[in-house]
């Protein structure tokens, strides 16, 4: 009986932990031949952006004076979006590569 109660408590806790990020999504941005695609993504605070780098080169997703995500060649990198706003980002190594993330409040 006490075991059952313990299991119930456990389920509640796990359920509680799981229910929080239900609304948060992971949005993929693929990098192929020096292009971010899609170029523009719409997201909400709490969502994660995952850059999937198919190139043989290292890239970054950088907002001047704000975040700077390193994306190694043939690897992925993620960023959890913390604040609302419209952010134009670019690659520091290849300044022609540009993208935009429009982040709505949670």
């Amino acid at each position, binding site marked *: 009986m006490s075991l059952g109660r313990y299991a119930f408590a456990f389920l509640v806790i796990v359920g509680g932990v799981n229910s929080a990020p239900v609304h948060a999504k992971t949005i993929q941005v693929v990098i192929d031949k020096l292009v971010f695609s899609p170029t523009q993504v719409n997201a909400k605070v709490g969502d994660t952006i995952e850059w999937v780098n198919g190139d*043989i*080169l290292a890239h970054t997703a950088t907002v001047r004076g704000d975040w700077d995500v390193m994306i190694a060649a043939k690897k992925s990198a993620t960023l959890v979006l913390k604040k609302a706003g419209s952010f134009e980002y670019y690659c520091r190594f*290849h300044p022609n590569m540009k993208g935009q993330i429009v982040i709505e409040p949670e």
Partner: protein
Amino acid sequence: MRVRLSTAIAAAFLLSGGAFAQDAAKPTDPQIAHIAYTAGQIDITAAKQAIAKSKNKEVLAFAEDMVRDHEAVNKQALDLVKKLNVTPEDNNTSRSLAKQAADKQAELAKLNGAAYDKAYVANEVAFHKAVNGALGTLLIPSANNAELKSLLETGLKIFQGHEQHAEHVAAAMK
């Protein structure tokens, strides 16, 4: 200064263009691999000279990008020729590219400060323009192996980015 700079650009362009124009015959895959690899090494050497000489933040960042990207592309090229069991073959285009690059490097070595920065970046614009022209009109159309062709096409995209980046740095220095 303006005249000297544009003369330098024209000279670099003509020289690089000349290297590619020298072999009228269609290059073979082993020759193409050698030319592409040589062009990459030339730009790495030039960038390392810039890293040692320049104090300009934009120029240094650009030079570091050149080393990082051209080393990555050349590593891919080496892996590919190994996989395809192709031995890159030295040829007149590679030789004349290397000769002109060595001359250019000696010329740049004599310059310092802003004069060096301007000349280095101007040459980067001209060199990438010449290499991209050769890739688009000669090397890519001549490549037989599909994987080599694809790597050259990826290279062209990358180097077009470099050309624009160099133009941007050059414009910011005026």
